[in-house]
Structure formats: C-alpha cells, structure tokens
C-alpha cells in the first residue's frame, strides 16, 4: 500500500518520472479503447468484466439492501400523501382488470378447445430465474443493471429479463453469481420487435434516452402504425422469446416509432431471467406431436407469424408477469404455440 503515494513524495526527481507514467497509462487507455472498439466481445475483455462483476457483487449486494430499505421508506412517505388519489385510481384499474379477467377466462376456454382440435405441440417451457437488482450503471451513456444470479443458477448470455410490467433487457455478461443486463435504452441495445395490429417487424434501438425507437428496414412502402399500439418482441433471430410485452408506440418520428417502455427503470428491483431454449426446427422433432390425437398436417396454418400470437392469462397473481408466447419466426410445417407460464411465484 505504501507504493500508492508515501514514497512518491520523496525526492523532486520523481516528478518527471510520474509524468511519464501518466502519459504511458493514458496511451494504454487509448489503446484499450481502440481495441475494444474492434473487439468488444473478445473473450479476454469479457472474462475481465465478468470477473470484476463477480468480485464486486457481494459488496454491491451488501449496500443494495439498505438502499432499497431507504427507498421503500421514502416511497411510503410519498404514498402517504396521495393515498386517496391512489386508492381511487386503483379502484378504477381494478374494475377494468376484472373485465379483462373475465374476457381472459373466456378466451382461455376457447384456446383450450382449439388446442384439442388442432395439432398442438407443447413448446419448450420457460424456466424463470428470480433475481434482485444489486447494481445499476449511473452513467450517461452505458445503461445496464447487475443482478445477483449467474451461471450457477443457469443464467446465460442473451437471455431475456422481464419484470412484472414488461421486458427489461437481456443478459450480456455472466459471472458465476452475478450478471449484467443491457437495458433497452442503452445505445448498444438492439431487440427485434413487432408492432401489434400494424403487422410490421422492426428493431428496437436504444438511444440513451428514456424512450427507444423502433426502426424498420428501408422499403418503398411507408410503414403504417399508430400511437397506442403495443410493441412486443418478435423472436426474430432466435434469441428472445416471441411476444414479451415491451411497450406502446408513443409517437411517429420521421418514420421511426418512439416507444414508451412498460418497464420503469427507476423502480426495477425484482426481475426474472428467462431461461428459454428457442425451439429449433428439426424434421424428426416435428414428426412427434406431444398431443397424440393430432395430425401434423392438420394445422399447417397459413397465418403469418405476427398474427399467431397466443397468450394465456390466469386470474392468479403470478399472471401479472408477462406470459411468454413464442413461435419461431421461421416458416414451419407445424404451428407452434406457446403458453408456458412461469411456474414460480415472485414473492
């Protein structure tokens, strides 16, 4: 520890020496920066990041608890002052949700009867991993969060992270006991999405602002969408499950859809990492239906992938977390529907 300063103080001749060190280290930084520009995903850099994240996780977790307690207390005080207004809003929302619940129950029955009629293949189940946010980058340009689960719990690179309101981001670094979520607002974030009702697919691109934008591939026809339409993950590219709610279209800005996210990053604390294995199209798998009564040919439906979104809603509390319907974006002989619900209940 002495080397950090004490002995540097002695002798004036050291001064020029320390300036050389400073400049050398500066050039090392610039070199690092240039090399991370060309090989940000290089295994050495990733390994270093993951090691540091792992090492810092216990310290972060230690402080995250008290911070959360304080935030909760402050939130309680704030709630106390507008409890009447909140009650009124909640009562209204509850009435609305009850209607939705009834509609969902009716739909569930309808879907169940369709599943009996058609060839139905159970999609791979989503295994959610519950996690607590222990870190968050307070940086103007890098938007990410750290969670207290890692490869030991089954987290791996690219997995989707949701909270009760919607998609939060995806996993980019995985340590043994901690991992990093790249938020949708980060400038590096690219998530394939589609706009419900507009039948268009695009990429949700982070712009470091609170509201990311959906960009569409250039085409001669203008893309038509309206504010208020829902934005969901499309599952294109085979990384994130299809149909995770992302947000709603807020406005049209020069042909790009600005999206108001469902996730509120100022409140994100409990999240679930979706351990999801994307269904692969393999001929022999397709030939073995899980529902014995079904014929594979019976359901080669011609519906476009963006239309065949199915969601199951249960009136139980855990249904508040987004359900994860998924169907491969690739054309397949058999329709795959998804109704896997996270089995675990978030506390």
């Amino acid at each position: 520890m002495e080397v950090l300063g004490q002995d540097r103080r002695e002798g004036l001749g050291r001064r020029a020496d320390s300036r050389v060190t400073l400049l050398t280290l500066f050039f090392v930084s610039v070199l690092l920066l240039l090399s991370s520009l060309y090989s940000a995903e290089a295994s050495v850099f990733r390994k270093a990041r993951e090691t540091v994240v792992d090492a810092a996780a216990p310290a972060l977790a230690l402080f995250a608890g008290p911070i959360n307690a304080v935030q909760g207390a402050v939130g309680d005080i704030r709630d106390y002052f507008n409890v009447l207004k909140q009650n009124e809003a909640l009562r209204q929302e509850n009435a609305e949700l009850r209607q939705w619940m009834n509609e969902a129950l009716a739909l569930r029955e309808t879907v169940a009867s369709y599943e009996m009629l058609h060839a139905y293949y159970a999609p791979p189940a989503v295994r959610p991993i519950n996690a607590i946010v222990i870190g968050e980058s307070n940086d103007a340009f890098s938007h990410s969060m750290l969670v207290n689960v890692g490869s030991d719990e089954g987290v791996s690179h690219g997995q989707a992270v949701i909270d009760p309101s919607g998609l939060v981001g995806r996993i980019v670094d995985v340590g043994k006991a901690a991992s990093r979520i790249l938020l949708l607002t980060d400038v590096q974030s690219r998530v394939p999405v589609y706009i419900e009702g507009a039948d268009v697919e695009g990429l949700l691109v982070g712009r470091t602002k609170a509201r990311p934008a959906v960009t569409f591939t250039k085409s001669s026809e203008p893309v038509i969408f309206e504010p208020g339409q829902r934005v969901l993950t499309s599952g294109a590219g085979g990384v994130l499950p299809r149909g995770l709610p992302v947000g709603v279209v807020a406005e049209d800005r020069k042909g790009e859809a600005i999206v108001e996210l469902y996730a509120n990053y100022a409140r994100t604390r409990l999240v679930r990492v979706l351990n999801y294995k994307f269904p692969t199209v393999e001929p022999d798998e397709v030939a073995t239906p899980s529902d014995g009564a079904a014929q594979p040919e019976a359901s080669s439906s011609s519906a476009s992938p963006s239309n065949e979104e199915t969601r199951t809603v249960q009136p139980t509390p855990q249904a508040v977390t987004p359900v994860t319907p998924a169907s491969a974006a690739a054309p397949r002989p058999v329709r795959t529907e998804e109704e896997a619900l996270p089995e675990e209940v978030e506390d």
Partner: protein
Amino acid sequence: MKAATPTLLGVVGVLLLALPLRLGAGVVPTPLLPLIIVFFWSVYGPSYLPAGSVFLIGLLQDMLTGGPLGLWPAVYLVTQYIVISQRSYFLGREQKVVWIGFAFAATGAALILWLVMSLMSGVLLPVGALLAQMATTVLTYPLFNFGFAHLQRRVIVEA
C-alpha cells in the same frame, strides 16, 4: 496505509456509481465522485493519487458500468494531466476559484466522453443525461471539497 486513502475513496466512488441509488426517484443522477477525487488530489496532493491508481479507478468503473474499456481511465488521466499542469495556479486560491476550475475540468471531461461515445456508436448521442450528471457533480463539488480538505489536512498529511 493513510497515503492510500484517496485511492480507496476513488474505489468507493466507483462503487457508488454502480449501486442502484436512484436519487430523487431516479431523477437526480449520481455525482461522479471519482472525478472530484481525481481533481482534488491533483491540485492538493498529486503524490497521494499516482497515475496508476487513477488508471485502476477508471478501469474498475468501466468494468462495473459496462462501458468500453479504457474510456474512464483516459478521461481521468487527461483530467489529472491538465490539472497538475495548472496546479500552481490553483494552489492558495479561494475555494470559489477552484470550484470554477472544477467546472471547467468537468466540462472538458464531458466533452471527451461525448466525443468518444459518439464516435464509437456512430451517431451523435443526446447530451441531456451527461450534462445533468456533470451539473450534479459540479454542484456537489464544494461539499466533497470541504470533506476532502479536512481529510487531507488532518489525517493524511499529519501521518
């Protein structure tokens, strides 16, 4: 051991930047404490915060906040270089003058950050969040300056 205090404070500052503090329900950005530390000790005791420590603090910040490696070390080292070269001007001046000096240093750091990040991402990034964070840092500087001055005078140098 006492001579390592600025370095340890820098590490604490980085940890604060990696914690979900969400000051003011997420509205107020966390001040860049390491920048204040680098500035303060570059003026009042460069020997207590050698370039190696500054480099490590920056690298730790890059790794914890998920930015490109080398960004924050470069920013902090440039700040340290410029401040040390202007040190004779700051020493013995009024605190207000030093504060204005810090505001200039923070502006310079923000400019470098914005340029590098814009170059790396290929688009001109919005500056709102960066300016807000720098403003918070500059506004809280006198507070930290007061604390660090006491620490430097009473604890570190007295050793």
